[in-house]
């Protein structure tokens, strides 16, 4: 069933990889003892591995081509996930099931699982926040973590110096981050695409470096410890209870965020953001104030990062600048892109995958991050549009039942 030509191709690929990985994977030297270690077995594994993988990839491609061909013959079918989201008949029960699952989670699983899930849900909110900026408004922001840091440090510092409580700082942290978003947005939002990306990256680094170096202000790299967990009407909660409590808090925030983002997307503002993403010139020509609309998106995204930042500080009870590196921004961005730009469901799935994956990959111990990197590449190569694409709302009008084009791709 498999042509000889392909076998030959796979053999060539495996030779290439054997060559490619030769110095790094096979040779290990100790310059002091002057010993060279030749690990030929590694080359053998690589050769076999790449041979098998290339065959598998080829088989997959052939199958995919066949499937695509068949698809063209029959009517275009939507992907499975897409269909669920489009059909209220499936979406609502599914949403309710998810909600029930979410609410009962701490009862079903251990404290550790709850804690991990809390982290994942925090990233859901972060992803949804960044989604407004990147996915909806099309502004590539590589320094999103700066606003997250602002939120976290707002709570840590305001609590340290002025003894302000969690509930007071929660909105305050969000607002501070949003304010900073506006402050930064003014000068840089006229930059285009990748230039904006690098400036926001630089900005994120500047914030982190200031937190690291300005010790008088932020206590520097040693960070701020003993940040109180959020209180519940003055009741002191035990450790396990505390985790459950924060879990529900974050779950509430997730629901709130979904609600708000969903409403925003189908509003005058949301349409303006989408239009901005698709064509800036046409957008302006239609009377949309580019700067103002971008600023709103940017600061609104920042607001969410600030909120989650405050919760982060309260959950971890400790903040230091090491938590707010570029890698963090990259992961949040990956959540948005991997899930499907602009899609709420996509972002949720993306966050769950990317945050839970490394946790459950712990079994792989040192191969964990290797696998993580590989998964990112593979997911993008096979699903470049993300797991779920955006679904725009369709409108119906009385007396025009015969409206064409109700089905989206």
């Amino acid at each position, binding site marked *: 069933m498999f042509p000889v030509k392909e076998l030959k191709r796979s053999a060539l690929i495996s030779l*290439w990889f054997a*060559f*490619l*990985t*030769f*110095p*790094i*994977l096979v*040779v*290990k*030297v100790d*310059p*002091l003892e*002057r*010993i*060279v270690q030749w690990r030929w077995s*590694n080359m053998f594994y690589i050769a076999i591995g790449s041979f098998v993988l290339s065959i598998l990839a080829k088989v997959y491609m052939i199958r995919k081509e066949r499937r695509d061909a068949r698809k063209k013959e029959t009517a275009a079918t939507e992907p499975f996930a897409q269909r669920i989201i489009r059909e209220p008949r499936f979406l609502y029960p599914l949403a309710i099931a998810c909600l029930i699952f979410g609410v009962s989670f701490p009862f079903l699983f251990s404290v550790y699982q709850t804690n991990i899930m809390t982290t994942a849900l925090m990233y859901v909110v972060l992803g949804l926040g960044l989604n407004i900026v*990147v996915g909806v408004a099309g502004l*590539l922001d590589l320094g999103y973590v700066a606003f997250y840091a602002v939120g976290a440090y707002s709570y840590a510092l305001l609590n340290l110096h002025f003894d302000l409580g969690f509930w007071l700082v929660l909105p305050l942290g969000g607002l501070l981050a949003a304010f900073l978003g506006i402050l930064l947005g003014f*000068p*840089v939002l*006229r*930059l*285009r*695409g*990748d*230039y904006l*990306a*690098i*400036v926001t*990256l*630089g*900005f994120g*680094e*500047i914030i982190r*470096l*200031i937190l690291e*170096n300005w010790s008088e202000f932020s206590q520097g790299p040693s960070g701020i410890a003993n940040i109180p967990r959020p209180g519940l009407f003055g009741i002191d909660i035990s450790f396990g209870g505390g985790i459950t409590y924060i879990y529900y808090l974050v779950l509430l925030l997730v629901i709130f965020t979904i609600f708000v983002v969903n409403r925003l997307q189908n509003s005058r503002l949301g349409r303006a953001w989408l239009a901005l993403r698709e064509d800036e*010139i046409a957008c302006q020509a239609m009377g949309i104030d580019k700067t103002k609309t971008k600023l709103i998106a940017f600061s609104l995204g920042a607001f969410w990062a600030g909120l989650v930042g405050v919760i982060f500080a309260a959950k971890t009870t400790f903040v230091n600048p090491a938590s707010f590196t*570029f890698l963090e921004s*990259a992961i949040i*961005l*990956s959540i948005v*892109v*991997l899930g499907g*730009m602009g899609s709420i469901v996509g972002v949720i799935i993306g966050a769950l995958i990317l945050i839970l994956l490394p946790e459950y990959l712990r079994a792989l111990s*040192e*191969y964990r*991050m*290797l696998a*993580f*990197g*590989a*998964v*990112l*590449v593979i997911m*993008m*190569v096979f699903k*470049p*549009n993300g797991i779920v694409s955006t679904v725009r709302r369709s409108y119906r009008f009385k007396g025009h039942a015969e409206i064409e084009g109700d089905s989206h791709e």
Partner: protein
Amino acid sequence: MDYFIELFFSGLTRGSIYALIALGYTMVYGIIGLINFAHGEIYMIGAFTAFIVATVLSIYGFPLLAIVVIAGVAAAVWSSAYGVTIERLAYRPLRQAPRLAPLISAIGMSIFLQNYVLLAQTSDFIRFPELIPEFAFMEPVAHIVGSSDMVILVTTAIVMIGLTCLIKYTKIGKAMRATAQDKTMAVLVGINVDRVISATFVIGSALAAIGGMLIASHIGQINFYIGFIAGIKAFTAAVLGGIGSIPGAVLGSMILGLTESFATGYVSSDYEDVFAFSLLVLILIFKPSGLLGKAEIQKV
């Protein structure tokens, strides 16, 4: 005055290294419009390959000059091989994909390569052999400009001139320029775009590998993580100069290197990176396409 000259040369050394890496960023960006986040890792792999080859050769008793040449060539060859493979695996399938997909793929590649070297070699820092000897004639000024600084500056200059000639006068250089300007047209006039893109990755990776070997020899140590920071800085430099522009990448790198050096010397090294990134933000506010980048005239 001595102090100024010292800082100036230290800035130039830094700038040269940034330039060698930044060129790869800028060339790839110019051709396929992708921020190749894994480029810093190519630089790291170049340094590691040079380390391994140089050590093996020195154990087998080769003379220093042979070691330098062979290690340099090996680093360039393998880095290029990695560059081409990455392009083939992680970027080429995504050429028609939305703009951000290859970016995420690049970030994933970067994480993968870091951990690949970490697992295959070591998590620790290792000593890089001194491939650049201390020249006797440099001794009088050694406290200001070291031999390795000199070698780095000279090598970078030679490489820049070579690259400029390559792009200006050779067939592949012309094909690269054509592809960068208009990919569809390039296909129409019979340029094999895939091959041009591969060539870009080869050249960019080889430059990064040479940079990796030089800097590793200059500071005497490497580990799997060195590519990340150098990569970000070089990328910043490329954008500063106007991404896509080759002289821009060099200019941006030099300005960035000098800024960092003078910021450390006259203000505080605490904030050297803050200065670097602030400079970037400032320049982009006043020149939104970087120093030598072409200002895009919107076609409406």
